[in-house]
């Protein structure tokens, strides 16, 4: 054990990752996802989950082939659960098995959960029907509220309305795995699952738990979610070429691709993992969280908050920028994000910027769930010495002039990686992860 780590945090407790699971548009299962990323495959396709034919954006990172029906047959309590919850449960099953904890995580009171689940799906059809029925002729009060409530009571499913709430995913996860330790769910837009991983890491360091389930899940792939981002002009409208639509750092990028999915990790206190002979993917060593406090609709052009998040994470991990071998970018493919993120990284790393890639080029943007899978790709990179690519990067943008690992995965030894996530509204998260060496 190096001395460096023993000074890390006030308890000296170290946190490692021992299990991973994912469900995304690239595949059902972390292994399928990682193979897809290494092959530079895009999971973006035409939206089929609802009729988006007349929407400005008609493509997304939709999860297809998920066995919803067999889950519902096996678990009747999930009958009305949202898509995000199913993705979280499937990912968690995979992560628990991967960690060798299928039979439980030991003392249930020392097993906690800190998750970043978004709202889990929206029953837009019945909602729109209820509002349509309740439209009044009164211009000052477009919708008759009493009528709406009456129609909603008749047409909507109570259980479904409960299930779309962002707290329900954790309730299902805790029930399935008998989690009796601390439990929380945060929702900080695009930073949520990264923030959840960071907070779970801190809970193990503090001694509140020995094993934590963490990560995130989200499905905004419903008419209102798609509409919301469309109106913010955040989405790509390259409807005719879904697979090449997400183009982080490319000069021709025109916004992100909305996606859905989940990523679940099992974090474990090091000695707990060693005692049971667990396979260790890597060690989480740093977590930085800041806020821009700038403007609601704009990122701080200098990215001061983002830079501080990286600095805090590195400091907590006792790392210097020169130690970092790979950066998993937030890299949304919006005009502004990619320029500012590039600026931040250049400012901090100076002449020696490590390779930085955005897997959103392949998966789209899973919003609350994005950070978890990006963090998992750092662990994949450490284990296999392969950096996943930024696909669809063909035409360099003069303002984005770093090594983004364009088009193809690259053999590259990675001992230390960082993962960035920037939430809409100004939350910045950075996580550091290192190769575990006994």
């Amino acid at each position, binding site marked *: 054990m190096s001395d460096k780590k023993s000074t890390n*945090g006030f308890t000296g407790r170290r946190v490692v990752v021992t299990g991973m699971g994912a469900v995304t548009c690239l595949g059902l299962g972390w292994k399928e996802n990682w193979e897809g990323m290494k092959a530079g495959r895009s999971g973006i396709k035409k939206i089929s989950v*609802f009729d988006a*034919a*007349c929407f*400005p954006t008609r493509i997304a990172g939709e999860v297809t082939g998920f066995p919803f029906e067999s889950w519902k047959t096996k678990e009747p*309590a999930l009958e009305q659960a949202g898509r995000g919850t199913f993705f979280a449960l499937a990912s968690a099953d995979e992560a628990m098995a991967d960690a060798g904890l299928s039979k439980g995580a030991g003392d249930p009171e020392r097993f906690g*959960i800190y998750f970043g*689940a978004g*709202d889990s799906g929206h029953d837009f059809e019945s909602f*729109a029907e209820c509002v*349509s029925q309740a*439209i009044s002729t009164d211009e000052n*009060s*477009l*919708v008759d*509220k*009493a009528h709406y*409530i009456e129609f909603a009571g008749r047409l*909507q499913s*109570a259980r479904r*309305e*409960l299930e*779309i709430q*962002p*707290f329900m995913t954790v*309730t*299902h996860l805790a*029930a399935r*795995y*008998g989690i*009796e330790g*601390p*439990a*929380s*769910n945060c*929702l*900080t*837009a695009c930073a949520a699952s990264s*923030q959840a991983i960071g*907070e779970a890491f*801190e809970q193990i*360091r*503090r001694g509140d738990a020995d094993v934590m389930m963490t990560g995130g899940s989200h499905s905004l792939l419903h008419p209102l979610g798609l*509409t*919301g981002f*469309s*109106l*913010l002009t955040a989405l790509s409208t390259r409807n005719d070429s879904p697979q090449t639509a997400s183009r982080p750092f490319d000069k021709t990028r025109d916004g992100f691709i909305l996606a859905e999915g989940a990523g679940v990790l099992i974090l474990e206190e090091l000695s707990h993992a060693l005692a049971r002979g667990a396979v260790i993917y890597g060690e989480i060593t740093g977590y930085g*969280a*800041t*806020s*821009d*406090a*700038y403007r*609601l*609709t704009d990122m701080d052009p200098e990215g001061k908050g983002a830079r*501080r998040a990286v600095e805090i994470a590195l400091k907590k991990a006792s790392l210097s920028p020169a130690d970092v071998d790979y950066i998993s970018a937030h890299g949304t493919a919006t005009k502004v994000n990619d320029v500012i993120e590039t600026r931040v990284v250049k400012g901090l790393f100076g002449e020696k910027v490590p390779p930085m890639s955005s897997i959103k080029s392949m998966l789209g943007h899973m919003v609350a769930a994005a950070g978890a899978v990006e963090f998992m790709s750092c662990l994949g990179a450490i284990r296999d010495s392969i950096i996943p690519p930024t696909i669809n990067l063909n035409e360099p943008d003069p303002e984005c002039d770093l090594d983004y690992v364009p088009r193809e995965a690259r053999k590259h030894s990675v001992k230390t990686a960082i993962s960035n996530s920037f939430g809409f*509204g*100004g*939350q910045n998260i950075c996580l550091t992860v290192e190769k575990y060496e006994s």
Partner: protein
Amino acid sequence: MKRRIAVTGLGLVTPSGKGWQAYWKAALEGRSSIRAIQSMELNGFIPKLAGEVLDFRPQDYITQRKSIKLMSRDIQIAVAASCLALSDSHLDMTMIDRDSFGVCIGAGIINSELDELGMGIRGGIAPDGRFDMAKFGTDGIKALFPLWFLKYLPNMPACHISITHGLRGPNNTITTSSAAALQAIGEASRIIERGDADRMLAGGTDSKINALGLSRLSMLGFLSGKNGGADCYTPFDVSHDGLIPAEGSGIVVLEEYNLARQRGAQIYGEIAGFGTSAQNQPLGTEHGFSRFAKERAINHALRDAGLSAGDIDAVVADGCGIPQQDIEEAEALQSVFGKSLARVAITSLKPVTGHTIYASGGIEIAAALQMMREDTVPPLLNLRSPASRCSLPFVTGKAVKRSVRHILLNSFGLGGQNASIVLKKSAERPAASHV
């Protein structure tokens, strides 16, 4: 040495009024603000009772008119509560490091205003009067306010608060239903304890006094069916039959203890322990099992504080008035306190305002802190005859004087989330005048 957490500012916007003083006075006097809903027409819809924040003017707190347009009601009252909390803390904002000042807020999916969303839906109605997805895509989307989405994302209250006050530290949003505000305060304490921030604004905000909120609560069977006067909200009483909803926001200033001492701050009390849990039995099955989850949250908090149940002088129970929840909480308290139960004074404050759901813990903590300062426990209103299995040493009728050094505060969510906090009386008086 562990860093200690002081509460040095309280900001409340509740049906009892603005500021913690109005709320505390109402709690002491046993005055409820629950009445028939005034802000919307609800002709056929019963029940009609709620706790509304009346006479609220966002422009009293938010100077930029443009910002108000981007704020739903939940956000407006949260920003107002944050202004009140900072003002109550007497922090000199020009002198402090805002990189180490963060925000942690409990909030859920904010309900869209139907009149606003209705513009888009109306655009999607085909000539035959039915909603048509294709027409919504071509005509409906265009009819919506372009920044509509930004008013309803759960993290927006915390974002607006950070922008309003320039707070650049950690920023988080906790979405654990009625446990959220208390959990946000607990998590913010941990952020200060580990040194990631020196100060945090923490609490919660909620308004479900709108068509979407009321219809969901009603469908889920959470609402009380009683439709009389202010005395209809009866947690733990034999007549309990659900909650009466309210809106509000409660936000506190948390500060590293020594920093608070050094600036001579008024210290209301300390966050001594924090525990959480999730109901870990499948929903819709044997609900009775979830008392164990509530018990675990309380035990985690006691252990974190290094205290045993016998050290607790008073409990602010969640007491949400849903029969199953009341019974589970009462049984959890009976089990945790055992023989020492008789010497504890137990109250619940939800009948004062109605249930503010995501905001409740942020509001109730203000009263809990005053209970320690004034050694007084306000009564649980409307308790005539405790429901079966809900027998606890409740304070009823009038507020009682008694020494309160440690207090337990419970906030339990409507989907199985539980948070408990143990507060400790501040032994020390301010080092200097805070004026």
